[in-house]
């Protein structure tokens, strides 16, 4: 995630965003899109991007469409 200036958000901005959307999961500052680019196709960022990992961080979907069946398959 990056802020309005294209910079990594600070903690205050992360907290505001999490509160605004009632987010209870980790909201993380992805400096330089390091993690987003790991899963991006041909190193092109898509927003929003969706990736799904099974337990032990096994990649099931990398920057693609996540279906309900994918999530069910990923659950331990």
């Amino acid at each position, binding site marked *: 995630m990056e802020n309005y200036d294209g910079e990594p958000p600070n903690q205050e901005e992360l907290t505001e965003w999490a509160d605004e959307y009632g987010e209870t999961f980790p909201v993380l500052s992805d400096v330089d899109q390091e993690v987003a680019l790991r899963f991006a196709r041909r190193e092109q*960022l898509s927003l929003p991007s969706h990736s799904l990992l099974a337990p032990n961080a096994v990649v099931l979907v990398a920057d693609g469409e996540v279906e309900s069946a994918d999530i069910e398959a990923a659950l331990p």
Partner: protein
Amino acid sequence: MKRTKRPFVLVVASVAFWGACTDKTQSDSFVDSDTDTDADVTTDDDGDGLSNSDEESLGSDPNVADSDGDGWDDGEEVDGNTSPVDAEDHPYTGGWAIGDCRDAVTSTGNEVGETAEDFALQDQFGDTVHLHSFCDRAVYLVGAAFW
């Protein structure tokens, strides 16, 4: 003759116990480093939820509840699968559980079917969150921007 074997054994066991523990400091297996007559294996001098004996094994201070000074008591850290002697490693303020398998995850790559590399990113509480902390469950990553 009525069989009384079971009560008899119990009585002998009690006698043997008292005989062995009359003088605790003389027992080969009894360790009482703070000489309070309570065995270290059950004593928790700092009240952090870990026995002195466990603290010795972990390398934490049995007289300080928060050995690494990170704000989390040693017992909370062990329960949360973090280190009580590493101030940078502690349970997440957000309450997300850390899997005890986190150190066993071996990355192979970030393509489908591979084991993703770990990351360390700051969360909304200021903690550094690691992907491999969630090794015991599925993870759904959503990339977004403010603009």
